[in-house]
């Protein structure tokens, strides 16, 4: 049995914590383009490169589209590749995100979540990564700088698992996490290096008819991402879906393996319940809001309210069974979205959570709260009002306004 190792307590902003995790994860290639609020990640990492602290090839590209293209190419040759972006940068990558997942390139990317223009806004919300939810990438969201650090290290293990082979994006809330200095316990370099290990490859059949590792290598010529029309395209897509299903188990396994060395775990890796065992009213949210919400739940519990929280750590693949079982006894649920799906009758997390509850025996009331767009701060008292509304819904026995806007000017 492995023992939890001694760790160094550091003061790091979320972006710095990500850069530090990448530094320790034995990454071969980083290709990135700076954009606020992600800039500190690549700035800090390029310092590591310049100071000779890593042997990583740092590729300065002219755009995010190229950053992703370079990351995919590097990954195809067998390299471990990382990039980071936010907002418009992620939007510019859109086309290439599908190429990464379709080529089964296990690229890891940090997204310092930021609003999309217009109007121009550099602050945090989830519009950027939610817009990429169907791109075939695994999506995880961090609650604090510590979880951002831990999740990046775990992401390589998840992405490169042979049952998965999918790219992973780790979201950290722009400014609220990316630029806030916090305590981060960092594992020793050699422990991280051993944890992430050396990249493995499945064996595939080459053009020459022999088996070889699935990577571009002149010794074993093969094609990646070639044309596949009506004959095979559909099968490729079905395989990606299967990989997503496999990821549900792999994420849980990596979460528990990581807990053995670090002493830290995040629920089962997919979702993290807080005071849910006997909760009657509960909220579901992603990212840094979960931390504030825990303090609100503590206060409500002191006042005798049976309140709980479900933090959705992994959004893709959607942990359907984990969410259903966590909410089994909850009577009213508030789903929080830091993002809008214009004309879509609520936010994306709301859609999916309400959808997966359709098949359960006794459905809870479900209400959507859209909040914090463009980095608008959400106070504990505003969050508390969500639970008060859930209690009124229980009393009234119906949901009057299913989609609510929290902290919006009248």
């Amino acid at each position, binding site marked *: 049995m492995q023992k939890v190792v001694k760790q160094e307590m550091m003061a790091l902003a979320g972006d710095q914590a990500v850069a530090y995790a990448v530094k320790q994860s034995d990454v071969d290639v980083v290709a990135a383009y700076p954009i606020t609020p992600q800039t500190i990640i690549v700035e800090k990492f390029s310092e590591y490169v310049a100071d000779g602290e890593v042997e990583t090839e740092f590729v300065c590209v002219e755009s995010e589209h190229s950053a992703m293209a370079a990351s995919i190419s590097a990954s195809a040759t067998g390299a471990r590749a990382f990039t980071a972006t936010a907002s418009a940068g992620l939007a510019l990558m859109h086309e290439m995100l599908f190429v990464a997942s379709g080529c089964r390139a296990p690229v890891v990317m940090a997204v310092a979540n930021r609003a999309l223009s217009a109007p121009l806004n550099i602050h945090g919300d989830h519009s950027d990564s939610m817009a990429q939810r169907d791109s075939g990438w695994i999506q995880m969201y961090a*609650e*604090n700088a510590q979880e951002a650090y831990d999740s990046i290290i775990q992401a390589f293990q998840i992405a490169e698992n042979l049952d998965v082979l999918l790219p992973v994006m780790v979201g950290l809330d722009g400014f*609220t996490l990316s630029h806030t*200095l916090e305590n981060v316990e960092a594992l020793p370099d050699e422990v991280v290096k051993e944890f992430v290990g050396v990249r493995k490859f499945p064996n595939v059949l080459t053009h020459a008819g022999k088996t070889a590792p699935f990577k571009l290598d002149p010794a074993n010529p093969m094609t990646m991402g070639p044309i596949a029309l009506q004959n095979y395209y559909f099968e490729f897509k079905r395989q990606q879906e299967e990989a997503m299903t496999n990821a549900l188990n792999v994420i849980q396994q990596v979460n528990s393996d990581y807990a053995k060395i670090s002493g830290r775990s995040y629920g089962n890796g997919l979702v993290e319940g807080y005071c849910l065992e006997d909760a009657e009213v509960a909220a579901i949210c992603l990212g840094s809001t979960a*931390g*504030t919400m825990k303090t609100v739940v503590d206060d409500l519990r002191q006042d005798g309210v049976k309140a709980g929280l479900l933090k959705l750590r992994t959004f893709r693949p959607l942990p359907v069974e984990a969410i259903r079982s966590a909410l089994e006894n909850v009577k009213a649920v508030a789903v929080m979205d830091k993002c809008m799906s214009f004309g879509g009758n609520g936010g994306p997390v709301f859609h999916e959570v309400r959808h997966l509850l359709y098949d359960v025996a006794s459905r809870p009331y479900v209400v959507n709260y859209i909040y914090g767009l463009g*980095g608008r701060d959400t106070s*504990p008292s505003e969050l508390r009002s969500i639970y008060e509304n859930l209690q009124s819904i229980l009393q009234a026995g119906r949901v009057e306004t299913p989609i609510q806007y929290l902290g919006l000017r009248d």
Partner: protein
Amino acid sequence: MKDITEVRWHGRGGQGSWTASEVLARTAIYEGKYIQSFPEFGPERMGAPVTAFTRISTRPIRIHCAVYEPDIVVVLDPTLLKTVPVTSGVNENGIIIINSADEPAKVRKTLKTEKGKLWTIPATQIALKILGMPITNTAMLGTVARATKLVSLETIELILKERFRPDLAEKNFAVINEAYSEAKQE
């Protein structure tokens, strides 16, 4: 019982509010505490009013939002008293620290609250005398150390040496020491 101490810094862009918030946080982490330090994420321009925050706790900090009910308010620039609601959210046990050459009793009249324990410090004068520049953040930090006993002067000195050039660290520590002894309580 609140287990987090929340500090709100008010200054103008260029006076080092975020740096003060960060040095306080780094000092506290060195002393084994959990911290957060962040600026108000607005547009920052030289001379415009800015806000920064520090949270210090003996336990991991989970909350991630602005500070609405600060335990300690620090005002780096006295001209802000007229334009910014610096005492917003301060309660009876709060501590208000203001850069002013005036006695606390006189400054109290310009405040919009009777709440909180008030301290004053002629930070601009001390900064001009020792640094030759009206950068008041370290004088305010010295007063915070005196008024709150949140962190020790010894650790602040260590952190300054880590973060600044040796000559700057030395001068700023002289500022902190003078502020520590000159601070006046209401």
